[in-house]
C-alpha cells in the first residue's frame, strides 16, 4: 500500500469509529452548519455584493474605489496606523514583560495589573479620555497650556490611544514567551562568561523573536480593525473600517461599503494566519528539562531604575485615562464649568438604563452558548478524528480574524432579506456575539486540553463511557477553569463590542457602546463618561465575581483576552 492509501485507510477507520456515535456526528454536523450559515455565508454575501453590478459579475466597484484618492488614502492610512501602533505597542509590551519577568523590578503585581487593565476597556474609552484631556476644551491643551487646537484628532491621537489600548495584547503574548524561556539557559550563558547585555542579545532576544513578531502582527490586525477609536478621534484621518461604515450606513452605498470591508478583510485574515503559523512553528521556548525556575534578574540597578521609570510612565497614562473618565462623570461642563454634579448620572439613568439592561441581558444569553460551543469545538478538534477536522478549527478561528466591520455588513446583507428577515431582532445580536467570540472559547479550550493527558479520557472510554459521556463527566469538569475564563472574556467582549454591532442595533435592541458613541458625537461628554464608567464597573464586577467563584487567577482569566 502507498502511504496515501494507508492514510486514507486510517481516516476511514477513524471516521468509522466516529460514525458509531450518533451524538458526535450530529454535533459535528450542527457545528459545521452553524459556522457555514453565520460565518461563511455573510462573508460570501459581502464579496458577492462588492463584485456585482447590474446583476452581473464586475470589478467596477473596486476600479471606482482605486480611482479615488479618498479611498486609496484610507487604505494607506490604515496600513500606516497599523504599522506605527504595532511597533510602539510591541515595544511597550516587551519592555513591560521584560521588566516584570526578567528585569527584577519591584511592585511586580501592581505593574502586571496595569499592563493588562486596558484590555477590558471599551474600545473607544481612551479616545474619550484623550478628547477630554487634549481636545479643543481639553484639560491639558486648553486649560493648562492655553492652546486652541484640535491637533489631537487624527494620526497623533489615534497612535496614542491605540498604543495604550493594544499594548496589553503584546504584553500577554510576550510575557508568555519570556516565562517559557528557562532561566537556567540564561544563567548558564552568564556562567559561560556572557555579560548581561550579551545574554540579552544572544539568548533572550533570539528566543523571544517569534513571539515579538507574532505580537506585532496581532496588534497590527487589531489596529486595522479597530472602529471605536478612529470614529471618535480619527478626524480627517480616514481609515478603512470607518470609511466602510460611513459608505454603508451613512451614504447608503452598499456595494462600496462591502468592497471597503473586503479590502480590510483580506490583509487582516492573511496577517492573522501568518501569526498563527509563526507561533505554531517557532517556539523553542518550551523544550526544556527540569528547571530550577528561579531566574536571577538579568539587570543592573541602573537598568532596573530605567525599566521602573518606563513602566511607571505608561502606568501614569493608563491611570490618567481612567481617572479622566471618572472625573468627567462628575463635572458639569468639561472645559467650561468644573463644578461638581450628578446630573450626568440622572440623565444617563433616564436615557441609558433600558439600553444597559438589554446589553447585559443579551450578553448573558450569548455567553454560555459561546463557551459551550467553543469548548465542544475544542474537544472535537483535539480529541476526535473526522473528515473536515482541520476545516472546523480553521473556520472557528477565522471569525477572530474577520474584522467586525465585515461581519456587521455581512449580517445585514445576508440576514435582513428573505427568508431570514432578522434585522432589528435580539436574535441577530446574540448570534453576532456568539460567532464573533467563539474563538476565545475555542482557544482557551484547546490550551486547557493540551494540558490534560488523553489517557484520562481514554480511561473513561475504556471503563465504558461513550464520547458524549466522557465529555460531560471528565473533559468538561477538567477544563472548567478554561471554560469560565473563556466565558468571562466572551462576556466582556460582548459588553464592549461595537464594530459589528453598530450595523445591527435597532431602536428596540440598542447597545450601550453605540449609545456612548452617539453621546460623544453630540458632545455630551459627561454622559458618555458616566456610561463608560458604569460599563467598566460592571465588567470589573463580573470578572471579580468569576474569579471569586471559580478560584481562577488573574492570568488565567486575562490570557484568554488576547
Amino acid at each position: 500500500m502507498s502511504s496515501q492509501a494507508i492514510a486514507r485507510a486510517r481516516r476511514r477507520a477513524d471516521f468509522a469509529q466516529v460514525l458509531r456515535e450518533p451524538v458526535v456526528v450530529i454535533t459535528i454536523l450542527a457545528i459545521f452548519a452553524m459556522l457555514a450559515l453565520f460565518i461563511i455565508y455573510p462573508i460570501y454575501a459581502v464579496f458577492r455584493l462588492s463584485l456585482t453590478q447590474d446583476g452581473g459579475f464586475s470589478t467596477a466597484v473596486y476600479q471606482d474605489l482605486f480611482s479615488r484618492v479618498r479611498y486609496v488614502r484610507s487604505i494607506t492610512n490604515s496600513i500606516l496606523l497599523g504599522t506605527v501602533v504595532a511597533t510602539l505597542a510591541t515595544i511597550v509590551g516587551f519592555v513591560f514583560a521584560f521588566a516584570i519577568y526578567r528585569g527584577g523590578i519591584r511592585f511586580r503585581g501592581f505593574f502586571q495589573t496595569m499592563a493588562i487593565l486596558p484590555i477590558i476597556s471599551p474600545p473607544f474609552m481612551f479616545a474619550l479620555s484623550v478628547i477630554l484631556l487634549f481636545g479643543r476644551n481639553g484639560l491639558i491643551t486648553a486649560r493648562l497650556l492655553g492652546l486652541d487646537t484640535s491637533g489631537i484628532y487624527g494620526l497623533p491621537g489615534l497612535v496614542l490611544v491605540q498604543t495604550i489600548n493594544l499594548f496589553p495584547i503584546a504584553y500577554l503574548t510576550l510575557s508568555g514567551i519570556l516565562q517559557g524561556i528557562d532561566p537556567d539557559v540564561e544563567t548558564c550563558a552568564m556562567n559561560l562568561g556572557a555579560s548581561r547585555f550579551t545574554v540579552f542579545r544572544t539568548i533572550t532576544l533570539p528566543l523571544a523573536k517569534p513571539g515579538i513578531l507574532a505580537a506585532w502582527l496581532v496588534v497590527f490586525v487589531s489596529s486595522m480593525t479597530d472602529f471605536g477609536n478612529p470614529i471618535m478621534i480619527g478626524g480627517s484621518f480616514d481609515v478603512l473600517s470607518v470609511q466602510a461604515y460611513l459608505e454603508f450606513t451613512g451614504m447608503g452605498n452598499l456595494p462600496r461599503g462591502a468592497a471597503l470591508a473586503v479590502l480590510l478583510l483580506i490583509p487582516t485574515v492573511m496577517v492573522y494566519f501568518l501569526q498563527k503559523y509563526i507561533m505554531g512553528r517557532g517556539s523553542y521556548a518550551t523544550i526544556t528539562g527540569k528547571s530550577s525556575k528561579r531566574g536571577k534578574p538579568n539587570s543592573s540597578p541602573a537598568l532596573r531604575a530605567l525599566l521602573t521609570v518606563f513602566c511607571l510612565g505608561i502606568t501614569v497614562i493608563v491611570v490618567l485615562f481612567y481617572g479622566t473618565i471618572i472625573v468627567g462623570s462628575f463635572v458639569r461642563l468639561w472645559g467650561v464649568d468644573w463644578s461638581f454634579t450628578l446630573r450626568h448620572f440622572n440623565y444617563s439613568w433616564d436615557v441609558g438604563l433600558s439600553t444597559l439592561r438589554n446589553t447585559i441581558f443579551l450578553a448573558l444569553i450569548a455567553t454560555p452558548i459561546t463557551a459551550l460551543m467553543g469548548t465542544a469545538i475544542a474537544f472535537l478538534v483535539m480529541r476526535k478524528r473526522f473528515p473536515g477536522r482541520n476545516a472546523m478549527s480553521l473556520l472557528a478561528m477565522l471569525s477572530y480574524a474577520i474584522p467586525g466591520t465585515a461581519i456587521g455588513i455581512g449580517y445585514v446583507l445576508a440576514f435582513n432579506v428573505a427568508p431570514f428577515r432578522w434585522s432589528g431582532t435580539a436574535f441577530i445580536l446574540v448570534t453576532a456575539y456568539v460567532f464573533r467570540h467563539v474563538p476565545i472559547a475555542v482557544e482557551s479550550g484547546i490550551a486547557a486540553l493540551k494540558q490534560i493527558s488523553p489517557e484520562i479520557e481514554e480511561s473513561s472510554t475504556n471503563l465504558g463511557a461513550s464520547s458524549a459521556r466522557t465529555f460531560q463527566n471528565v473533559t468538561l469538569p477538567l477544563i472548567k477553569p478554561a471554560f469560565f475564563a473563556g466565558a468571562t472574556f466572551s462576556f466582556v467582549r460582548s459588553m464592549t463590542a461595537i464594530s459589528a454591532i453598530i450595523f445591527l442595533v435597532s431602536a428596540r435592541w440598542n447597545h450601550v457602546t453605540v449609545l456612548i458613541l452617539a453621546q460623544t458625537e453630540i458632545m455630551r461628554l459627561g454622559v458618555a463618561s458616566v456610561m463608560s464608567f458604569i460599563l467598566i464597573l460592571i465588567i470589573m464586577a463580573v470578572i471579580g465575581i468569576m474569579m471569586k467563584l471559580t478560584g481562577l487567577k488573574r492570568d488565567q482569566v486575562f490570557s484568554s483576552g488576547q
Partner: protein
Amino acid sequence: MEQQTIDRSAAAEFAADPKDSRKPDYLVLKDIVKDFVDGSGGIVRAVNSVSLSVSKGEFVTLLGPSGCGKTTTLRMIAGFESPNGGTIHLDGKDITQVPPFQRNMPMVFQSYALFPHLTIFDNIAYGLKLRGVSREEMRHDVAVASQMVNLVGLEKRYPGELSGGQQQRVALARALVLKPDIILFDEPLSNLDAKLRIQTRTEIKRVQQLLGITALYVTHDQSEALSLSDQIVIMNKGEIVQQGPPEEIYNEPKTPFVSDFIGNANFLDGEVVDVQNDKVTISVDRAKFVLPASRCPRDIASGEAVLLSVKPEAIRVTGSAGAGAELTGKIDVSAFVGPITEYKIVFGDGIITALQPNRPGKTHVHRSGEEVALEFEMESLRAYRA
C-alpha cells in the same frame, strides 16, 4: 517482612468462575497489521502480522524495546486503534470493530489516568455508574475493591493527595471492581520507584492468581516479564520474535536479539572449526568451545562465522591470570553493587560484561587494570549464525 497488601477474603468475592479456567483461545489475535504514516509521508509498519492466542486465566506479557509495537498491539485490543488488517476475537466473538467503550476490558494506564476531579470512591465507582449498578451494590463493590488493594480510609480523598503507589492501586481497583474477565496493563509500574515497583509487581500477580483473571501486560522490563508471566511474547520491530514460558525464553533464546534483550548476553565473534555427530567446535581467539548441536543453528558447517552468546552471570572471574589459563582478560571497570559486582572486561577485540555474586568475607573485588582469568559455564553458551 514484606507487607502483604492484598486482602484475600475480599478477593474471594470477585473471583472468576474456576470451571472454565485455562480455556484455550480465549483472546485471539490473527494476522494483526497496523501501519502509521509518519510526518514526512513515509509508512511505518508498527505491527506486522501479529498472531497470538491467550488462554483464559493466563498472564501474558508483551515484552520488547520501545517502538517494537507492543503498546500499539495493546491499544488495538482495547479498541483505541483500528488495525489495518487482521481480526481480534474475544471468547469466540469478533470484536475488531467494536468501539472501545463497549469492550469491557479495563486497562491500567502507565500514567494511571485517574480522574483528578473525582474522589477515590468516585474514581473506583466510575465504571459501575456507567453500567447502571444500584447504589447499594456500588457501595458494596467499591468497598470490596478498596479493601482488596488496601485503600480503605482513602475513599474521600482526591488522586492528587495520594502517593504514587496508592494512585497505582486506585487504578487497579477501578479496573477490578468491574469484575472483568480480562484486564489490560500498559507499563503500569514504570512510574514507581524501584522498591515499590517490585512490591507492586508481586501484588498484581497475587490478585491475578486469586481472581483467576486473564491478564495482558505490556512492559519493556525483562525482570517484570519474567517474574509475572505464564507466557512471554517478545516483540521486535513490529513482529513477534519468540513466545513461551519465562524459563524457556530465558534459557533457550532463539535469536541473538532475544538473548541480548532478556539476558543482556555478551556476543563473541567465532568460527566453526569442526562438526562431528552432535558436537560443534567453535573457536574464539585462541580458545575453543565444544557445544551440543542443539544449541547451534541447524545444519551449521565448518568454516561458518557464528556469534557465540554468553550470559554475564555465566562468566566466572577466577583470580589472577596465571600460566595455563585458557581465557584471560583485563578489568576495565569494576562496579560493586551490593549483592553482585559488575565487571567490564577487555576480552579479545571487545569488552564483555560479567556479574559475580558477592559473599561476605569470601569475595575478592578485582580492581580496574587487573589481569584476570575467565571461565565460561558451558551450559549457557549458544551459537547463532553471524
